[in-house]
C-alpha cells in the first residue's frame, strides 16, 4: 500500500514545493510537514503530499551495516 517516492525539493512557496526526481518535476503540498524541508533535501511524496524528509545518513547507514561485516545486533 501507499506508493511513495523520494523527490528533491527545488523551490518552496508557502505550502507548495517544486520537487524533482530524474528530471520529472511536480508541485506538491507541504501541509503535512511540521518542519518545512530545505531546498536540496529529499522528501517522500505520497499522493501529492510530502510526508517525510528523507534521512540520507540513515540511508547510508543501512547499507553500511551490511557492507561492513553483517553485525546484526538485535538490541
Amino acid at each position: 500500500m501507499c506508493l511513495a517516492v523520494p523527490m528533491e525539493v527545488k523551490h518552496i512557496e508557502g505550502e507548495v514545493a517544486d520537487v524533482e526526481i530524474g528530471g520529472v518535476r511536480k508541485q506538491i503540498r507541504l501541509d503535512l510537514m511540521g518542519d518545512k524541508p530545505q531546498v536540496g533535501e529529499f522528501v517522500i511524496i505520497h499522493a501529492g503530499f510530502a510526508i517525510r524528509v528523507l534521512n540520507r545518513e540513515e540511508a547510508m547507514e543501512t547499507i553500511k551495516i551490511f557492507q561492513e561485516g553483517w553485525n546484526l545486533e538485535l538490541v
Partner: protein
Amino acid sequence: MSSSDPLRDPALCREVLGRIEEALQGRSLRFMEVCGTHTVALFRSGVHSLLPSQVVHLTGPGCPVCVTHESEVAAYLELAGRDGVVIATFGDLMRVPGPGGASLKQAVAEGARVEVVYSPFDALAVAKANPGDKVVFLGIGFETTAPTVAATLRVAKAEGLSNFLVMPFHKLVPPALDVLLADPEMSVEGFMLPGHVSAIIGTAPYAPLAEKYRIPSVVAGFEPLDLLQAILLMAEMKRQDKPRVVNNYKRVVSDEGNPTARAIVEEVYRPCDALWRGIGSIPGSGLAMADAYKAHDAFEVLGVELRESPPLPGCRCGEVLKGKMPPDKCPLFAKACTPANPVGPCMVSTEGSCAAYFKYQLDLA
C-alpha cells in the same frame, strides 16, 4: 532497467540471501507482509523467486483498495449514478468490483462523471471547475493516505469550497493486525511492517507485536535490499529467539512518525468501526468525519448509507487476507477468478495478493 542504487545491488542482495539461509539453520520462516507494495516489490524485484524454499511468504490485508468493502463500493457507485455528482478518485479504485461486478469503469461507461486524480488536492481543482456539481472524493487509504485527504479537507473548509465532499473509507492498520493476531489459527513467525504507514504512525503502535505476541517484526523499505534485510532480521530474531520491532527503514521512518500528519487527521476525522472486505467489521479501524467537517461529509450531505451487501460467493479473500491460505490455493484462483473477471477484491488491485500471484508468479503460469 537498471539502477546503480546500492539498495538494488545484486552482489549485496546475494550476500544477504546467503545470510538468510545461514540464519534459518534449515528451519522454516513463515512471514507475512501487511503492505501491498511489499507484495508487489517482492514479486517484481524477483526476490520472491530467489527466497529459499523454507521461507514462506504470506500476504496480509495489505492494500487499501482490496479491503474496500462491497458495501462501500455499492455506496459510491450509487452516488456516481446521480446527476450533479462528480466522483474524484485515485486510479486504483476504478476497477474494484462491487456487488454484481459493477465498478467505476462501468459506471463511467454508463454515463457517470468520474475524474481520476493523482492527489486529493487535485480534486479541489475539479470542485472549482464544476461549481454547479457536488464533487465527491473517495477517501480510501491507510494511515499514509488519510492525512493527505484530511489536509485537503482543511483547505476546502478554509476556502469555503462547499461542493467538495469526501466519502471517508479509510482503514487503520494496527486494529487489523490485532484481529489477525487474535485469530487462533494464525501461525505467522514474522511481520514485515509497512514502510509508509509507519512513516506516519511511527513504531510505537507495533509494541504489542513483540511484547504480547512475541513475533519478530521489521519496518521495511521497498528496495530489494530492504526486503532481504527485513527477512534476514526476522530470521535472525527467530534464531536468537529475541522478538522485537526493528525499524530498518530509518531513512523514512522515525520512531515517533509524523505527528503533524496525525494531528491533522485528528482534527478532521474521528475513529469509527470499519468494514474490511473479506474480514468484516473491525472495531476502531476506520475514520469518520469529525463534526466540524460534517459539511464536507458526502454521507451526510448527500444522504448515503452503507447497506449490507452479501459476501462474494466462493471467494476466500478473508482467509488470504489473514494469511491462512496462499492465493493459489483458492479453488477459484486463475479459473473463475482472474484480473479480468475478479471474483474477490484480492484479484483486483495490482497490489492485491491474488493478483500479484496471478501476474508475477512464474511457476503458476
